């Protein structure tokens, strides 16, 4: 069944997003999107023993862009980086009880930002 508007969960995360902010000297940093398209997300992670111990985000975008960012940080926190990198856009949408069809692609970039942050962490580790 097609949904009307956003789910209750999306609105909860939009109004009270979890893990908002910046981590100074993060172990990994990912940024996706483009202000021209109306969505920019950045994710900062702290990693200890391959586990994501802290995660923060900042987002410019619509309701679902903010809610998916909040949700992906919840899903990733405490996970092993190899587990966290498996989190998909679909997982994020499911955990939010779905997104309106036209939002599935454009405003569901949060998982991509997380993947970028983890890749950044792995690159930095290799260079050490």
């Amino acid at each position, binding site marked *: 069944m097609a949904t009307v508007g956003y789910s209750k969960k999306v609105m909860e995360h939009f*109004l009270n997003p979890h893990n908002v902010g910046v981590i100074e000297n993060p172990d990994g940093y990912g940024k996706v999107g483009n202000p021209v398209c109306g969505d920019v997300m950045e994710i900062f992670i702290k990693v200890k023993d391959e586990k994501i111990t802290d995660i923060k985000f900042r987002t*410019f975008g*619509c309701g679902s862009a903010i809610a998916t960012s909040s949700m992906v940080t919840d899903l990733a926190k405490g996970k092993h980086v190899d587990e966290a990198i498996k989190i998909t856009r679909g997982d994020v949408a499911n955990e939010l009880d779905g997104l309106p069809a036209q939002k599935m692609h454009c405003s569901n970039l949060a998982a991509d930002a997380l993947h970028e942050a983890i890749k950044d962490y792995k690159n930095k580790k290799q260079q050490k």
Partner: protein
Amino acid sequence: MSRIYLDHASAMPVDPQVFEFAKPYLMQSFGNPSSLHSVGLEAKRAVEDSRRKIAEFIHAENESTILFTGSATEANNLAVKGTALRNITQGKAVVASAIEHMSVLNPMKELQKNGFIYTSLPVDSTGMVDLKKLETILSKNMVLTSIMYANNEIGTIEPIREVSKLVHEKGVYLHVDAVAAAGRIPIDVQKDGIDLLTLSSNDLYGPQGAGVLYVKPGVRIQSVQLGGGQERGLRSGTENVFAIAGMGEAARIMQQEMKQESSRLLPIRDSLIKEILKIDQSYLTGHPTRRLPHHASFRFSYIEGESILLNMDMFEIQVSTGSACSSKTLEPSHVLLAIGLKHEEAHGSMVLTLGRSTIMDDVEPVSKATYETVERLRKLSPMSQEWRK
């Protein structure tokens, strides 16, 4: 906290007097106006009575200039396609301002696909059409120019009389979409020099489901919807008698109240603008003075409009936005791009349209909610970082 509805450009409540007036046409005088029996004639009378009221509302020559349609979108389609196709022997060039409603622009683009030459007339940063440019565009083989009376997203009122003079020097037809302006500022199709004019019922506190196309006597158009030949054969389809009767009554009441209501809303609108522009990096969109009395539109840097709309709704305040994320096409508003905003600027827009329910006491909670909304979203935004430093 009670609701503060500031999205009258999107939808308006039906005036209770209008509803009472039109109600009998749903269940008692429900006849088909084309039926010759008494039940049909009652409905027919309601349609003709409404036609007369609408003609008075825009000071038309006579009531047979008024064609009822199912919506303003349909009236715009009929105006653009019906006029261009009927007068194809005169020429195949058409022009519309860059900030017209999609129901004008998309039919224009369709004409272009079918061999017409379509030119988009630019506007300046306040949304005013470029008259000098119009003069150079107009040519002998031009059949139709479409310029709106006032814009629904930025509130700018266009110089229709000057446009009309230019257009008629070349002998081409002028269509004016007056959906946003009607009932807010006086419209006189004869003095203004308008050949075709679009109106919407709901934008006058009438029921949804009725629109009007005024066609000046002698202006030739053809139908774009074929059928049983209603509305002089120019718009077939059984009339929505309830909506049409309501629209006429709504127009009559609007005409009576317009002057008083507009001067009541003007100081409320000005206070809203003054208070909201106190927010850092906030800007008025549209013309600062030549704007509709019930219209206040803004943009805020570093944030996005759909988030603004959702956040304001949490304060029980309903607003509108030209952001891409809130549109079906996921494109930012063509109006905001036409006045020269960058994509990222066009995303952060908020439109307030006032109505009969709006009072001066709304200004404080609305400005406060706007301030809090903008603050909260900027704290979330990676783009405001640099600016704060």
